């Protein structure tokens, strides 16, 4: 064991500290550095010299101070109490740090991730005497009104359950025992630990086959993400990456949302902290916060902890996936994570690859996104879980040839391309419909219970994309020769596309109705827009003047249809009758 190995600092350079007399240490062991017991992690070993990335500010640390190995890799505590928490990058609860230290984060405090005092009502779901394996569910805790926390046997533990009782327990109290065939007893607790850099196991990986509904029209109808899928949102600053991430965190139909604020603005995290508890989940009527775990390692917090935050987040997400839930993880922003890697790499004096990033950048990004997926969870009862990852990328100057963007595009299946041009036109979400893509589009039709409706939605989505493509071509011509010189039919296409863009793709995240649109309402709005298109083309064929069609009053109704509350869905469908009436009036 590498526990209690104690060495001495010989070098300090920013967040990297080198210590000697560390022989016997293992890579990624957590160490305590200096007199103030700063938390660090071994990232390189040379003989008995260890290079350590320190998760806290190293000012005032110098050669000669001690370094003590804890003998364990960086781990998270998993159990009841995670939901509604806000952690830093290494799972220290920020609310408790605030109570302890005040407004600023000071050094050397180790607060456990899970509260040791809270008692949880535990109900067993299996009988004593049952033979169990790692991953089997032994009981449940109702952690929040939205989440039933399943208590699982830790990985690698096998045997017969004894002494399992219902009752009120803290996360450290023994809830029962597992007695192995060799007579070894393992205590069962509500809490288990897991090393963050090791993916949690599953029985079998499955391909994603179901859409994760987000309530965002451009996403759901055109570039959907699947349960267990991966997506990335790259864009220059000011294009609304964070708003997209927040919107998804709020409205996505996942059971658990893990939000990792990685090297971003402090005020944005405060926004999440203040806004989420007030938002009500449209599906359950409960506060959204009751299914959210927040990790905030803002840009002014130490970089090494930023590097770890992404792993801490995904491990927590995997844990909930293993209970059989659909989990969505938002990482904002993976570029800051990559920069943290770069900074540590520079201090380790590693040979850089492109733009100073370490050569393993691509591999790290790929293995992070690979931890997403739909799986058959280990253990009984048999259950499926899914983990979706949505990563924001902040390329310098919005340049998509940036190493982080490119490495991410290699692995993700959905690409939402945010454009500065659209943001400048205040078209939000500024997702470019021409360059974005999704590999999960074929599952869109299955969202609807009604098979025909599903097929129709898929067709409408396809038709809209064709029209938008046509619009791009026509726009070129119009720019050169003016709108008057193209055919009435083409002008109808332009008008319809304008309507698709402004009335469907554009969505106001800050409007209380528009912020979220159910898939049924999306269907109705799109259908109305395309119905007008169809009727318009038919009218033009009959010889109706195009400008008369464009002047129809009903178009204003379409424009405001996204603000009609979900309860009055019939009103949206009713627009089509109005279209027919007004069209008829034209031709007579």
């Amino acid at each position, binding site marked *: 064991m590498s526990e209690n190995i104690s060495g001495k600092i*010989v*070098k*300090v*350079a*920013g967040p990297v500290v*080198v210590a000697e007399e560390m022989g016997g240490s293992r890579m990624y062991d957590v160490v305590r550095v200096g007199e103030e017991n700063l938390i660090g992690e071994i990232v390189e070993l040379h003989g008995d010299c260890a290079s350590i990335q320190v998760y806290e*500010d*190293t*000012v*005032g*640390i*110098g*050669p*000669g101070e001690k370094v003590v190995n804890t003998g364990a890799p960086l781990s998270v505590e998993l159990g009841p109490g995670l939901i509604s928490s806000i952690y830093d990058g290494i799972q220290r609860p*920020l*609310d408790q*740090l*605030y109570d302890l230290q005040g*407004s*600023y*984060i*000071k050094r050397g405090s180790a607060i456990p991730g899970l509260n040791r005092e809270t008692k949880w009502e535990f109900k067993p779901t299996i009988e004593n005497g049952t033979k169990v394996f790692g991953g089997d569910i032994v009981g449940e805790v109702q952690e929040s009104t939205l989440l039933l926390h399943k208590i699982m046997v830790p990985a690698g533990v096998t045997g017969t359950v004894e002494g399992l009782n219902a009752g009120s327990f803290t996360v450290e109290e023994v809830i029962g025992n597992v007695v192995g065939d060799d007579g070894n007893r393992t205590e069962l607790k509500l809490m288990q630990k897991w090393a963050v850099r090791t993916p949690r196991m599953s029985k079998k990986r499955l391909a994603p086959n179901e859409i994760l509904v987000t309530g965002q029209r451009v996403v759901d109808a055109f570039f959907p993400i699947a349960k267990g899928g991966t997506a990335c949102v790259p864009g*220059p*600053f*000011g294009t609304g990456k964070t708003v997209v991430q927040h919107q998804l965190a709020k409205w996505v139909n996942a059971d658990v949302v893990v939000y990792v*604020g990685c*090297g971003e*603005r*402090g*005020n944005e995290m*405060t*926004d999440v*902290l203040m806004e989420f508890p007030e938002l009500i989940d449209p599906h359950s009527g409960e506060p959204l916060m009751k299914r959210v775990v927040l990790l*905030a390692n*803002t*840009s*002014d*917090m130490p*970089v090494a902890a930023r590097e770890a935050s992404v792993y801490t987040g995904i491990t927590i997400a995997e844990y909930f996936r293993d209970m059989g839930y659909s989990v969505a993880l938002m990482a904002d922003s993976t570029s*800051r994570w990559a*920069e*943290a890697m*770069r*900074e540590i790499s*520079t201090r380790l004096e590693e040979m850089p690859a492109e*733009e*100073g990033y370490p050569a393993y950048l691509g591999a790290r990004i790929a293995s992070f996104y690979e931890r997403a997926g739909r799986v058959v969870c280990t253990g009984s009862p048999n259950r499926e879980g899914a983990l979706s990852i949505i990563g924001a990328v*902040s390329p*310098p*100057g*919005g*340049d998509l040839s940036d190493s982080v963007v490119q490495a991410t595009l290699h692995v993700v299946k959905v690409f939402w391309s945010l454009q500065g041009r659209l943001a*400048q036109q*205040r078209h939000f979400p500024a997702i470019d419909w021409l360059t974005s893509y999704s590999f999960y589009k074929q599952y869109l039709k299955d969202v609807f219970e009604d098979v025909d409706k599903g097929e129709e939605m898929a067709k409408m989505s396809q038709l809209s994309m064709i029209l938008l493509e046509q619009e791009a071509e026509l726009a070129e011509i119009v*720019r050169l020769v*003016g709108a*008057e010189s193209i055919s009435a039919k083409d002008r109808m296409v332009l008008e319809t596309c304008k309507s698709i863009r402004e009335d469907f793709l554009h969505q106001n995240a*800050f409007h209380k109705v528009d912020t979220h649109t159910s898939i049924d309402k999306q269907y109705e709005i799109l259908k109305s827009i395309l119905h007008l298109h169809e009727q318009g083309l038919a009218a033009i064929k009959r010889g109706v003047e195009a400008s008369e069609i464009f002047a129809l009053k009903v178009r*204003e109704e379409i*424009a405001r249809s996204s603000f009609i509350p979900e309860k009055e869905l019939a009103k949206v469908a009713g627009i089509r009758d109005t279209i027919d009436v007004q069209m008829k009036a034209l031709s007579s």
Partner: protein
Amino acid sequence: MLKEYQTVSEIYGPLMLVEGVEGAKYGEIVDIEIGDGSMRHGQILQVDRDKVMVQIFEGTEGIDAENTKVRFLGKPMEFGVSPDILGRVFDGIGKPKDGGPAVIAKKRMNINGNPINPYARNFPNQFIQTGISTIDGLNPLVRGQKLPIFSGAGLPHDEITAQLARQATVRGEGESFAVVFAAMGITFEAAQFFIDDLTDTGAIERAVMFINLANDPAIERIATPRMALTAAEYLAFEEGMQVLVILNDMTNYCEALREISAARKEVPGRRGYPGYLYTDLATIYERAGRLKGKDGSITMIPVLTMPEDDKTHPVPDLTGYITEGQIIMSRALHRKSISPPVDVLPSLSRLKDKGIGEDKTREDHADLYNQLYAAYARGKEAQELATILGEAALSPEDQKYMKFADEFEARYISQGYYENRTIEVTLDLGWELLSMFDDSELKRIDVELIKKYMPKFRK
């Protein structure tokens, strides 16, 4: 008794290597006495066994390896604070520069600060009236926000920052207000303009200045913004004042950082700037904000000049990723003598939605800026089209939008540096300009609001 070392082994760029040092700590400050008896100041960048790398704020000119004495002070760089710092002028590393006596410090604070616990932050949502329509109406500033001004060489960023410092108020509150001004590598003229402006309005009594001019040592600039923010933190969170911090010019700060990085032979990132530029800037910008349980606030206006007006240059780019929006100056508007020449379309205040609305400004504010923005964007497109096709070729609709854009620039954007408009004046001006359109064209405004605020419906 502090040990003195005479073991300087290498001097290169702004750095110096001292050997045989015992007990040095990362980040501690250093006093350096050079051959002629004068003193310089430095900070430890790296400790490797007994070898210490020191960055020297005043530069290495005139330092020799043999006669230089180095003392390690065993503490990080500090600034002595007390309410007496108000009205004073300091140099880039916090020494009085106005000929006045040294400040008797109530306490000494580490200038590097500590990261703010995100949980301790209070969300910025109090509207600051700046009296500038393009900011108040379209990109409202709120208390605790960091909103940079992206400018370029030859653009009037000094005038607009002075106007902000002069006019910014939270209405209906008689709270104590202070300005902290950090000059990094700007010209004497630019600094003096600002000082004179504050003196004229009497605001100088409530200002703290840290001045590092263009001919002052470049490395000193690394410490200057941190000095300023330490003073700001003290005034805001211990004295309960509303502090406006102006950092001018951050591009010069970044260049000083680049100089050190190059001297350390670090792997450069884009344009030679170090890979940790983002993190370094974040430790400055993120010190703005409001804290739970504290009355004061720090609102920050960093000014930076974009080389060749290029927004994708690393300094504006990384700044934009950290700050909550940006105000961009337009050379084209400046040439048209429109002042302040705020380029409305790419400018953005991310916190605008939090600071406006019924109880804060007025209920029509959000819809109104969306509509003004959309109409102006359309008008600008028409303007561009007109330069290609000629105005006559535009559709009547496009012509109308073009006319709107012209009016908007002439009346809404252009107001001069000494007109202080209330938010009501700004909002009503917006309605007046929009009255040239049919109501049905104003798609982004709620019908009820049009009925209430459009001039023709008002009694």
